[in-house]
């Protein structure tokens, strides 16, 4: 039995939306103190729509796959929808994660939330 589903391996081997957005208007970076993994999300939001999203991840296979999947799930979506993205939805879209790897999808949810909060903070200034 393989450690991860085919979907996880696909997103791990060919991660979508990898990289940096130079003129991002929402950036979030989160980490998991226990495993030490770190995820960074860059958002380019215009008219309340996520026009572009990119990520960088220092982490395990499922952390990389979760960030990749999460970026696909919010790209082109309204900010309000992205705000509702849950780690469960990311894990399901990946055809599941091993129990002890569920927190990797939590990291993806948190990274997006953190980037969206950054965007909102910037808007207020």
């Amino acid at each position, binding site marked *: 039995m393989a450690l991860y589903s085919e979907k996880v*391996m696909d997103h*791990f*081997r060919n*991660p979508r939306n*990898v*990289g*940096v957005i130079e003129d991002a208007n929402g950036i979030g*970076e989160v980490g998991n103190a*226990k*495993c*030490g*993994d*770190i*995820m*960074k999300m860059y958002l380019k939001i215009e008219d309340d729509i996520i026009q572009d999203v990119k*990520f*960088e*991840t*220092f*982490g*395990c*296979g499922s*952390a*990389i796959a979760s960030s990749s999947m999460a970026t696909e799930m919010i790209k082109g979506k309204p900010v309000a929808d992205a705000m509702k993205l849950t780690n469960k939805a990311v894990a399901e879209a990946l055809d599941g994660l091993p129990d*002890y790897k569920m927190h990797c999808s939590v990291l993806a949810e948190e990274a997006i939330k953190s980037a969206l909060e950054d965007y909102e903070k910037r808007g207020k200034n």
Partner: protein
Amino acid sequence: MIYADNAATTKMSRRAIEKMVLLTEETYGNPSSLYTFGQRAKEALEEARATVAKLIGAEPREILFTSGGSEADNQAIISAAELGKKNGKKHIISSAFEHHAVLHTLNKLKKEGFEITLLDVHENGLILPEEVEAAIKDDTCLVTIMFANNEIGTIQPIREIGAICRKKNVLFHTDAVQAIGHLPINVIDDNIDMLSASAHKFHGPKGVGFLYAKKGIRLSNLIEGGAQERGRRAGTENVPGIAAMAEALNESVEKMAENAEKLTEKRNKLIKGLKEIPHSAINGDEVKRLPSNVNFCFEGIEGESLLLLLDDKGIAASSGSACTSGSLDPSHVLLAIGRVHDVAHGSLRLSIGEDITDEDVDYIIKSVKEVVEYLRGFSPVWRDLVAGKSQFILP
């Protein structure tokens, strides 16, 4: 596939397989049975015992067959603790980077009121005999130090530590699971009172091992039942496995010098190649290590992704020990030699086998370089290091 995880387990040798098949197909009797057919299995069992004993300089009656290294470690430590307790001695000395079979047994004893001292293994992964000596107290009942570490391969000064224990009249156990069959071991010359071994690390079968315990050391039973193994380990003996283990050990010892020379050359080539990767470091002393072991940390990347991508390239390697996967904590061995969490996470252990070629070595070096560079390419940790926002730890 290039199998570079021989510290996790090895391929059984042809000779060991044939021995196992022979005893499974033909000599399948129960060694405890009285009739000739059963006694033939008994003969095979005792022959294996004599072989194993001879190969480590012991007597046959000092060899107890077990289900592997973990059981042997448990039984050695529990026995020494029970002997100690009878004499009011409840202090045990070990090291911070032992296998969990040792560490978890010690933890159990700690809960039962034993005092445990875990010695520092220093940056190079080596224990200092003088620190063992300094740690011994009047109530020390056991010193247990592994022969060679399973993750970083460092070889401990066993003979010197044994001599100190002899002088101080303290029992000395060594977990030699990674060393036996790969390094010369003689329990008399090396001053060893108890030693654990596991067949699957020297081309024998899984689920078989042995405990050497010097004459006069009374072992406690972990498994109660029949009178097998002189009443010290109940259960019908795994005769095919035991015979195959003896065969495998014999073969490993025969080929030891030749294999060690070849492996050391390939290992050194791997180390040289991987050192070229910027901000990397070898873990453990570069010379006093198993001929098969290469262990590196690469800053800015995480070990699991590294392993998965190497797997895609047909290289089977490990990060930390196989037992650690499933746990999120970085390797206790790398932490023990002073690697910080971030760096300990990006570790790679290659434990090469005797059939490795120069082409394999070149391919491994090239693949690791590619994968490390690729993963660094989208690592936020690496980005901060390169941008000077955080400090490199590895030169």
